[in-house]
């Protein structure tokens, strides 16, 4: 009832304070601000007082759920509005911030903040929303690329850039709009250490150019020298403290450990910097504090992580076989060798970390140990027995695997069922309750596992894994995206299992974690194993560290060597991209294996090999027609084609379509055959259906097989049908080969006055197709591990539909937010005239003549060939 009463007035209507006594240079002023999201009882931000001055840089720190992102969105003017919320208190924002482009935002997910297909369109998108005249756009876009030192061409598709490159492009996209304030919300959360480093360097550079900067970042050490002020938020959404960076961080370090902003084993940054210069620096005994209170059980036995190399040496295990041993291992996808000649042994009872750059094949290596990825050569033994000798059931009993995305492992719709691995009904077993309590999940029994917070999801997936004891635990980036408190709880639990004799193998990017917890580290890079041994040995080998892109986060940015700043074309050749593409091609998937990806690229008209070819080559006639007109014309043609009633008409129309494809779209006969052949088989079905079921005049001779009455007239009508559909396919191929997706959307806005939010929303959605394909492949692998349960459960939507769909919805929301943050709001989104266009698409009398002429020709043809 109360929600109903307050909702209309809270939406969009930000209480505007009079702002008396505001000091000069203030761009944002918040007084006693409280923010509450609809459907929740507790406010996400309470009693916030904050002022932002022009030219300063501020770092927001807080545990997860402390409202950091909400505060950033509030300052950006996206809360309330783009995101619904009730806001009370005084909010004053500089008038320039409310203009399009007043704020530039960089979000954490590189995939969802780009919304176009090519570099040029991407950079121009914000300018279009600002209504920058078209003749100035090209120059500003080029200047932005130069200023950021990005050697990219404007027509280069950015889909296959590495994550770090995408983030740099996103930063260039905000800078090109010349925002008053730039806000970065965990821009490195999804990146490997080297890419993070590049983003940090970029941030430092932007800062040096005098940009007012707001940063949320949990790996903040390298940023500290560039931040004027730190704001600490607690878990209730109140500001704990705000002040000069160095002073606040030094004085509040203990508090930051307690609330989980930094892991308990971490030393203050200044101390680290000093210590890191000494030779024995990385190896200090750190006191582990029970920061979260999450796991009383775990806290019992482990007060201190082991010093490196000790655990495995302590207990003699000569008689026990190695947990994992791999010799001559090789993995290749199509033409791309991921790794080769991999030899190492993981001793039983060790805590092994696999590290290396993105795309080195760490996850594949871990999956190979579980038999989910088959080696192309070499041998792999698990617990002393060759992998092929294991049955799947034995394997699942002996070893447990934890995916990076915990959602993939959920197959039930309630937390309690998930943990019990069966539908337990209303009486939740005591054992389940106890396990939930141990993992800080008490009270969530009846919730959907998907509705939990990120940290809770991860803890639940680990709890599921621990339901039965295993001898070997394989975890893919278990701490990824988790706050410090969850990380600590998780690692303590793993440590405990380890001490009970289980072998732990994880992949990670976190060198701090490796330093503190691992007894053995395997470095996978450059297509092989560069190092295998105790972490101490690795940290003493800076050469290997550099080759494997392992960056010590504690090193100040000033020490960056030039080659670390990899930029440019090599980014598009990032091995990780080959990895995913090749995987898609190897395993048939929902979208037909690598196909959607290629289709999107084809449809987008992006010749991946020659990025600048578009301007140079002469275009076929069909590509010079306005693309929107082209698409609509062909849809009308398909409608007219329904009138085909006889074989001659069918053949005539098909010949006409062939002529279009060759004459206007310049497709060669072999291209046509290649694209149309898959469909031929399909039409046999139609011919058969008609032959067997067509209504026939009495007395027509029929031919009897089994219970079918086959008739000659039926066969002929089936053939007509097939020809009609073949013509439709031909027209489809003709359209796809002659239009460019981006241009089509621009044409719909410019020429047909479609509201831009529909056209560009469609374009943004199209970008996610290849991502779905990867997700689907990963999901299938995860399901295989659940074995029978998942197979029987295919009828439950939780098994396949929910992880994919909820992921899709979240991605769509993030994408919408990112587009709105780039000024795609109000007129710019609602009316075609509310923005300018980087790509000019003309509509002339020729397009009209083409549309009418083509369809009249088809009508005339059918009339001439009428029966």
């Amino acid at each position, binding site marked *: 009832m109360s929600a109903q009463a307050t909702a209309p007035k809270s939406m969009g209507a930000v209480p505007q304070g009079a702002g008396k006594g505001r000091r000069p240079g203030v761009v944002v002023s918040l007084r006693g601000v409280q923010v509450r999201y609809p459907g929740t009882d507790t406010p996400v931000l309470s009693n916030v007082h904050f002022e932002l001055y022009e030219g300063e840089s501020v770092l927001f720190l807080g545990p997860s759920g402390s409202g950091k992102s909400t505060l950033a969105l509030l300052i950006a003017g996206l809360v309330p509005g783009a995101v619904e919320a009730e806001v009370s208190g005084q909010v004053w924002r500089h008038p320039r911030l409310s203009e399009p482009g007043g704020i530039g935002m960089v979000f954490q997910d590189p995939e969802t903040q780009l919304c176009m297909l090519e570099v040029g369109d991407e950079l121009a998108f914000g300018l279009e929303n600002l209504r920058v005249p078209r003749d100035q756009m090209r120059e500003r876009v080029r200047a932005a690329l130069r200023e950021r030192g990005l050697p990219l061409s404007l027509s280069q598709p950015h889909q296959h850039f590495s994550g770090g490159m995408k983030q740099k492009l996103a930063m260039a996209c905000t800078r090109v709009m010349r925002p008053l304030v730039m806000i970065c919300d965990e821009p490195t959360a999804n990146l490997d250490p080297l890419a993070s480093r590049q983003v940090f360097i970029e941030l430092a550079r932007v800062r040096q150019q005098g940009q007012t900067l707001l940063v949320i970042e949990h790996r903040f050490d390298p940023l500290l020298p560039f931040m004027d002020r730190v704001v600490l938020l607690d878990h209730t959404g109140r500001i704990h403290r705000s002040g000069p960076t160095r002073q606040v961080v030094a004085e509040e370090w203990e508090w930051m450990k307690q609330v989980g902003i930094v892991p308990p084993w971490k030393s203050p940054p200044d101390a680290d910097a000093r210590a890191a210069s000494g030779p024995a620096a990385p190896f200090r005994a750190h006191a582990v504090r029970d920061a979260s209170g999450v796991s009383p059980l775990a806290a019992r036995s482990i007060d201190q992580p082991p010093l490196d190399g000790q655990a495995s040496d302590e207990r003699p295990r000569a008689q026990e076989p190695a947990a994992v041993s791999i010799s001559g291992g090789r993995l290749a996808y199509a033409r791309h060798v991921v790794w080769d000649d991999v030899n190492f042994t993981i001793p039983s009872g060790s805590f092994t970390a696999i590290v290396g750059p993105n795309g080195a094949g760490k996850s594949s290596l871990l999956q190979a140990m579980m038999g989910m990825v088959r080696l192309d050569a070499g041998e792999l033994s698990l617990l002393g027995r060759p992998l092929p000798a294991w049955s799947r059931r034995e394997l699942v009993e002996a070893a447990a695997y934890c995916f990076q995305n915990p959602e993939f492992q959920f197959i039930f719709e309630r937390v309690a069922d998930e943990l019990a691995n069966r539908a337990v009904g209303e009486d939740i077993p005591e054992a389940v309750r106890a396990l939930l309590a141990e993992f800080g999940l008490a009270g969530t029994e009846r919730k959907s596992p998907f509705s939990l917070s990120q940290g809770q999801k991860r803890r639940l997936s680990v709890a599921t894994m621990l339901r039965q004891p295993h001898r070997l635990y394989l975890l893919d980036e278990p701490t990824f995206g988790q706050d410090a408190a969850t990380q600590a709880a998780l690692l303590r639990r793993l440590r405990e299992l380890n001490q009970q004799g289980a072998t732990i193998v994880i992949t990670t990017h976190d060198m701090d974690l490796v330093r503190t917890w691992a007894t053995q580290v395997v470095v996978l890079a450059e297509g092989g194993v560069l190092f295998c041994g105790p972490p101490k040995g690795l940290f003493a080998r800076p050469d290997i560290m550099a080759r494997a892109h392992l960056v010590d986060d504690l090193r100040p940015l000033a020490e960056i060597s030039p080659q670390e700043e990899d930029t440019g074309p090599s980014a598009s050749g990032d091995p990780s991209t080959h990895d995913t593409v090749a995987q898609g091609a190897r395993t048939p998937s*929902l979208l037909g294996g690598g196909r959607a990806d290629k289709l999107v690229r084809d449809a987008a008209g992006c010749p991946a090999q020659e990025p600048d070819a578009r301007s140079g080559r002469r275009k076929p006639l069909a590509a010079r027609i306005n693309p929107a007109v082209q698409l609509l014309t062909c849809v009308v043609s398909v409608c007219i084609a329904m009138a085909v009633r006889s074989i001659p008409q069918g053949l005539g129309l098909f010949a006409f379509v062939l002529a279009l494809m060759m004459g206007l779209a310049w497709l060669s006969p072999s291209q046509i055959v290649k694209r149309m052949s898959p469909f031929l088989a399909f039409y046999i079905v139609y011919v058969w259906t008609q032959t067997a079921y*067509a209504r026939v005049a009495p007395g027509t001779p029929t031919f009897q097989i089994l219970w079918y009455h086959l008739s000659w007239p039926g066969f002929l009508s089936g053939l007509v049908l097939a020809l009609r559909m073949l013509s439709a396919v031909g027209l489809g191929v003709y359209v796809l080969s002659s239009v460019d997706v981006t241009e089509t959307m621009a044409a719909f806005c410019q020429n047909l006055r479609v509201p831009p939010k529909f056209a560009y929303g469609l374009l943004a959605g199209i970008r996610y197709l290849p991502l779905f394909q990867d997700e689907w492949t990963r999901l299938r692998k995860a399901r295989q591990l659940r074995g029978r349960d998942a197979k029987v459960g295919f009828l439950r939507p939780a098994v396949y539909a929910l992880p994919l769909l909820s992921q899709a919805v979240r991605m769509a929301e993030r994408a919408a937010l990112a587009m709105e943050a780039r000024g795609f709001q109000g007129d710019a989104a609602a009316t075609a005239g509310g923005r300018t266009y980087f790509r000019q698409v003309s509509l002339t009398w020729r397009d009209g003549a083409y549309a009418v002429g083509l369809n009249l020709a088809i009508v005339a043809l059918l009339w001439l060939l009428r029966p």
Partner: protein
Amino acid sequence: MWKLRDIIVAVVLSAVCGAIYMGWDWLYGVAATGLNPVLQAAFNGLWWLAAGLVPYIIRRPGAALLSEIASALFEFVFGSPYSLGAVLSGVLQGLGAEVGFALFCWRRYHLGAMVLSGALAGLGYSVQAYFQYGANSYAPGVLAGFVIVTMLSGAVLGGALPKWIGDALYRTGSLQNFEIARQVRRQP
């Protein structure tokens, strides 16, 4: 009023549905070969999954029509054997489903509304089947059976199924910012 997030979610869900349609196209080609058209019609309803799922979540006028057209466009781009004919199906099925939701003034999305719109989408498809896919040459009894079974299939696969999926998705908590959750919140 359509928000940008509604549009992108509609597009993304349409893309997923488009991929499902394409898989269904080929499955239908294999499984339905030689079946009686009345039995073949039982497959039809899944081809307007998007016309039920998207409106059920975002609840805007035009959602059924636009998402069904969008999903058909994706189906076409993914390589549907029906090619541009699929886009035409999208228009007709989407129109049918939209009429169903319009009858409830785009306000109510209970099971009845979902089932009705699914069935009406089936009627829309029957029009195309009659003119384009040879249903006009079926014997009258077969034709009547084809239309009825198509509508029933639509009611179940294009009405009840998307509601079931939408409800399950709602329980995951990822739809909090969409009309489906807003309507639940408004109820006491």
